[in-house]
Every structure is written in C-alpha cells, then in structure tokens.
C-alpha cells in the first residue's frame, strides 16, 4: 500500500468525527434492538409461538432486524440520515486541505494523482464502514434473540415481495441477499460521500460541502417519490425491506453514471490542480 494511502486512511479512521458518526449510526441500531428486537425476542409473542399456540410462521431475524422493519422509526431515521453520517468522518477533508494549503504540502511530495486517488479511496472506505457497521452489529445482535428461520414466501410477513429486487435470492439464500444489500449500501454510501469531493470545487463553505450530498439525497427522495421512482433515491434504495420496486440494472446504470461522472470530475480537477 502506498505511503500516502496509509496516511489518508489513518486520517480518515483514527479520527474523533469517524467515531462520532459511527456512534450516531449505532445509536439507531441499538435503540432498534432495545425497542423492537429484544421485546419481541424475549416477549410473549415469541414464547407463545414456541409453545405452538401462535400462528404458523413466526417473525424471524429476517423481518425483525433494522433493515427489515421499514415501519420502525429507527429504520426510517437511520436510512434517512445515512447520506449525512457517511460524509461526516472525512468527506470534507479535500476542501479543508485545499483551502488551508495543506494539500500543496502533500502534493509537492507525492504528486497530484496519488494524492487525489488516496483521498477518494479514504473517503469511500470511511463512508462505507460507517454505513454498514451499525447494520452488521444490529443484525448479529438481533440473531442472538430471534432465530434465523428461512424466510417463507407463503408466510406473507416478509418485506420482500416477488417483484422486489433479488426476491428469489431472499427466499433461497437470505444471507447472500443481505450481503448483496450490504455491498450495495457500502458502495452507494461511498459514492454519496465522494460527492463531497466534487462539491469541494463547486461550493465555498465547508459546512455546505459536507451537507450537500445529504441535501441532494433528500431532494431526490421527495422528487422521485412524487414521480413514482421513489425506490431509486438512496434513502429508499438501501433498505432491504423493499417498499418501492427498483430494477437492478437501472440501479447500476444510475449509480454507475454518478460514480463515473464524479470520478471524471475529480480526475480532471486533479490533473488541473494549482495551488493558487
């Protein structure tokens, strides 16, 4: 690993704001466990099912963990603020480095391309980790209280309908389904945070640079909801409980285009970098 990448990763991860962002996400994940998962796992409903007095198919971890309970305030809030918390750890660092002059210090030692590449990788990875770690912790803890029963399409209680993206996978290999959503969350969170690198050149205020991707996600959430394409907004797209239908090839096309345009913009700015 190149020295500049190590330095950027260290700055991104060994960082109080990274811990604060992670703690924010964990607050929702833990609150969800305390309010939704544990009361169900140790409560009467589950106990009644074990004794055979409840209906045919109980809620399993696949419809009680954070990603499956779209009706829960914690799930709604977590996915709503996700585009903001993933930007917190390090996404504004390019803006800060350039405006303070620190970027010139580094670039004169390592060159433009490696500096910008290392910066983008560090921003992408820190955002991805902040996005998925609370989900992983929530899922694993939920699995301690609620069993991992194979989802049954006939039960009618699972948040994935036959028209949902990867529906077959959910009912045949649910862990694989969740892994795919984990990867999707990681990548989309990374892309959203990397938009701050683009905004670092378009906006002239650190705070606005930091919240611009979040505002963009919120605007897309309301605009797309009105146009029947709600599922493509990052706020809805990443929830494994799919209340809005999307097609995977369109997801790849939309987010791939955003990522490609962002990369091209950052590469252009890197090539034309001047410490004016």
């Amino acid at each position: 690993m190149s020295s500049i990448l190590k330095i950027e990763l260290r700055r991104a991860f060994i960082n109080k704001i990274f811990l604060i962002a992670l703690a924010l996400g964990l607050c929702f994940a833990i609150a969800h466990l305390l309010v939704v998962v544990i009361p169900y796992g140790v409560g009467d409903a589950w106990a009644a099912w074990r004794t055979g007095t409840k209906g045919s198919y109980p809620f399993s971890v696949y419809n009680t963990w954070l990603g499956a309970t779209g009706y829960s305030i914690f799930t709604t809030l977590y996915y709503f603020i996700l585009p903001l918390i993933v930007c917190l750890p390090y996404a504004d660092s390019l803006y800060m480095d350039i405006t303070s002059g620190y970027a010139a210090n580094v670039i004169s030692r390592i060159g433009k391309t490696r500096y910008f590449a290392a910066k983008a990788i560090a921003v992408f990875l820190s955002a991805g980790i902040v996005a998925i770690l609370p989900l992983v912790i929530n899922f694993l803890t939920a699995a301690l209280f609620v069993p991992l029963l194979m989802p049954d399409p006939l039960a009618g209680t699972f948040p994935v309908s036959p028209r949902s993206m990867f529906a077959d996978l959910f009912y045949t290999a649910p862990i694989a389904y969740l892994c795919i959503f984990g990867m999707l969350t990681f990548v989309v969170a990374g892309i959203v945070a990397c938009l701050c690198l683009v905004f670092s050149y378009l906006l002239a205020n650190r705070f606005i640079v930091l919240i611009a991707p979040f505002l963009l996600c919120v605007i897309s959430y309301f605009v797309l909801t009105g146009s029947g394409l709600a599922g493509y907004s990052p706020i809805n797209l990443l929830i494994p409980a799919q209340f809005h239908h999307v097609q995977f090839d369109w997801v790849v096309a939309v987010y791939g285009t955003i990522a490609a345009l962002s990369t091209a913009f950052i590469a252009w700015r890197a090539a034309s970098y001047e410490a004016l």
Partner: protein
Amino acid sequence: MYLEIDNLTKTIKGTTVLDGVTLSLERGRVYGLRGKNGSGKTMLMRAITGLIRPTSGTVAIEGKIIGKDESFPPSVGILLENPAFVSKYTGFKNLQVLADIQKNIGAEVIHETLQKVGLDPSDKRPYRKYSLGMKQRLGIACAVMESPDLILLDEPINALDPTGVDLVKSIIMEHKKRGALLLIACHDAQELDYLSDEVYYMAEGRITGHEVPGGDAL
C-alpha cells in the same frame, strides 16, 4: 546552473501575475526576492515548485522541465505564506506524517529539526493550539527537515521573535553551507540583505532589478 527559469509567464483570469521572468540560480547560495505585496514573489515560488502551471515559459531543475520532464522538483522544501498542517496533530506528528510520504528521514531527524527551530518535540499540544510564531517555526522545520536541494521560504521570519529570527538565520546558513539553493521572499530589507548573496527585485510580475548586498544595484 541548478535552477533555470526562462521567460516564465502566468496569467490568471486575464491578469498577468508573472511576466517573462528569467533567472538562473545555482546551489550553495541564498537568493532574496524583494517586492511589494502582489508583485509576484509568492507566485514565482509556486511556479518553481510546480504548484502552478506556467502560461508560457519554463522552470527547469538540472535541465529537467517542471511540468514536462518532472511533475515537481525532485527535492524541494517549501514554506508558502501561512504554514498549513493537520490541526489535531501535534507538531511532531505533523512532520512525521509528511516525512512518511517519501521516507527519507526518521523520527530522530524530525526530533532534531524541531529542536533547531526552537520547538519542543515532545509537546503534546495539537497544532491548532500553537501560537503564530510556533506555527511559523513548524513550517520552517517542515521545509528543511528532509535537507532538500531546493528550499523556498516565503516570509520565513513573519511572526517570529528575535530569538526565532536568529534561529532561522542559522538554519538558512547551515543549509547554504551543505549546498542547498535557498530562495527567500521577505519584507524586511535589512534581514533579506543580511541573509542573501543576491537579491532580485520584483514588481508587477517582473524582475525589475538585481543587487548583491554590499555591492551595487544592477
């Protein structure tokens, strides 16, 4: 000559900030740049380090054109206007992070350099808590710690007390003796004359004069 600047011109949004600058500078000497604010001193230093691209003309180091043969000078230390570091790191940590990029020096050299500029290497305060003078000293330490062949110092004695000024003078002389080329921009004419072997005058992006301190203006 180690550093050759040939007819260097830089235009930014229609304003010419460097206008046909031509200089030949050799190692083991200290060159001063004198001029009013906005005369182009800092911009010239940025062009030499490759941090801005010339509109026309060239900067060559040992015959290699910056921006064409090399992206940046291979061995350069810079202090440009206000020093910039990671605000939450200590002075030592900041220098260590930058030194880790090229891995030319270890912790001992950083330790020694900080002591030379009058900073305590074991100071646990983050950079943001440093006074202006301490920030300036750290900036100078950063520019010289890797003993580069080319050292560019823009207003190195800004915000320094008399002790700090003396330390900077001795550092400049030390690096001159080991054969580095030093280019210094400074508002204090007396200090610049004391430190420099030759002084160039700048106005409106052009070199308008040349003087050997103690000798005649050319």
